[in-house]
């Protein structure tokens, strides 16, 4: 029982995930593009003896179990539930695979056509080998027009905007796009994805293979839709 006597309860399910992530992440990737896996957020939940005793107090009748045994059972059962939950969420399963990305030399007007055709607000920019270089979002275009949002644009002088718009229409994507880009590997699980979304304000994340080539696009709304926390005990 030596291993059970610790006072802090941690989501040990994440431990296995971390190890798995370490296996999946080739070293030196950060030099090319920023990946999310190196973020290491501690997720400790402290289950005190008082918490357990209070729970026992609320259950009528004599419980033939010690506090330490309860902690051990809870910890293992909880880790198993977390594992099962996290197993279900893989970036490769949640991403949209049929994405037509942008190239750096594409003119903004052509890029805009791809945004509209795919009904997306951000698209990855890839090189000739399909490796992800950057993201281009609506916000990037607005910034090029000197506005922080569409509504800010409305408040600006209309004539001036029309001129600015014409000026940027034929500029290449490379001049407007955002780097570095935050990507996730295809095998990324719940925690890696959450960390990645936490690290940048975008709503969309490119999913890459081992050679950092684009394989799909993970939308925040798709990811959230897959998170049924109600399945947890």
């Amino acid at each position: 029982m030596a291993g059970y006597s610790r006072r802090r309860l941690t989501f040990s399910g994440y431990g296995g995930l971390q190890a798995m992530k370490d296996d999946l992440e080739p070293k030196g990737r950060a030099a090319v593009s920023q990946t999310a896996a190196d973020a290491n957020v501690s997720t400790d939940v402290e289950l005190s003896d008082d918490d357990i005793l209070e729970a026992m107090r609320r259950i009528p009748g004599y419980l033939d179990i010690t506090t330490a045994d309860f902690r051990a059972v809870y910890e293992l059962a909880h880790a198993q539930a977390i594992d099962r939950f996290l197993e279900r969420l893989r970036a490769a399963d949640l991403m949209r695979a049929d994405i037509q990305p942008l190239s750096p030399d594409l003119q903004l007007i052509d890029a805009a056509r791809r945004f509209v055709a795919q009904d997306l607000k951000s698209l990855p920019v890839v090189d000739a080998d399909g490796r992800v270089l950057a993201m281009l979002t609506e916000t990037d275009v607005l910034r090029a027009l000197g506005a922080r949002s569409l509504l800010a644009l409305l408040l600006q002088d209309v004539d001036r905007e029309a001129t600015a718009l014409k000026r940027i229409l034929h500029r290449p994507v490379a001049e407007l796009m955002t780097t570095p880009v935050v990507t996730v590997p295809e095998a990324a699980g719940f925690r890696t994805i959450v960390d990645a979304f936490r690290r940048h304000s975008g709503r969309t994340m490119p999913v890459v293979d081992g050679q950092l080539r684009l394989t799909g696009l993970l939308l925040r709304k798709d990811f959230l839709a897959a998170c049924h926390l109600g399945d947890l005990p």
Partner: protein
Amino acid sequence: MSIPRYLSKMRGTTRGSPPRVSNAEVIWSWVGAALGMGAVAWLNQHFLTGSDFSLMMGSLGASAVLLYGAPRSPLAQPRNLVGGHLISALIGVTCWQWLHQDPWLAQALAVSTAIALMHLTKTLHPPGGATALIAVIGSEQVHASGYFFALIPAALSPLILLVVALLVNNIPNTRRYPEFWF
């Protein structure tokens, strides 16, 4: 293992003991045990006499603690209650019949083997140890009854306690029995 580590285990893992049960629980434990022990004592006086009766009632008193005092306990479930007494009695009788020339050895092996077999059959029930022992240390009358001892009183008595537990433990809203049958 280091000596300090070994000694530190003796300090325990938790400050304070589990909470006390409510007064209603105390009353229902009392009612169940009074009825259960009353029934089983009345019944056993027809089969057992003298020290055999006293010894067997001791074992059943321990069962009553589990059955009416801790009905949620895995040790108090029907499988454990009846299985534990029955298997232990069989072991006790066997140990007496094979080893009665060395009573101390028969006693030691009766209890230890009963524990092992209750573990293996998932019927662990502490009073079973007493029942196994009674088959060895009981009177000539117990010894003479042979494996019949495993039926009466060893299997019949817990069945009586079980019936009372089913009737009484399911009356209050906050109690239910059993958690599982088999």
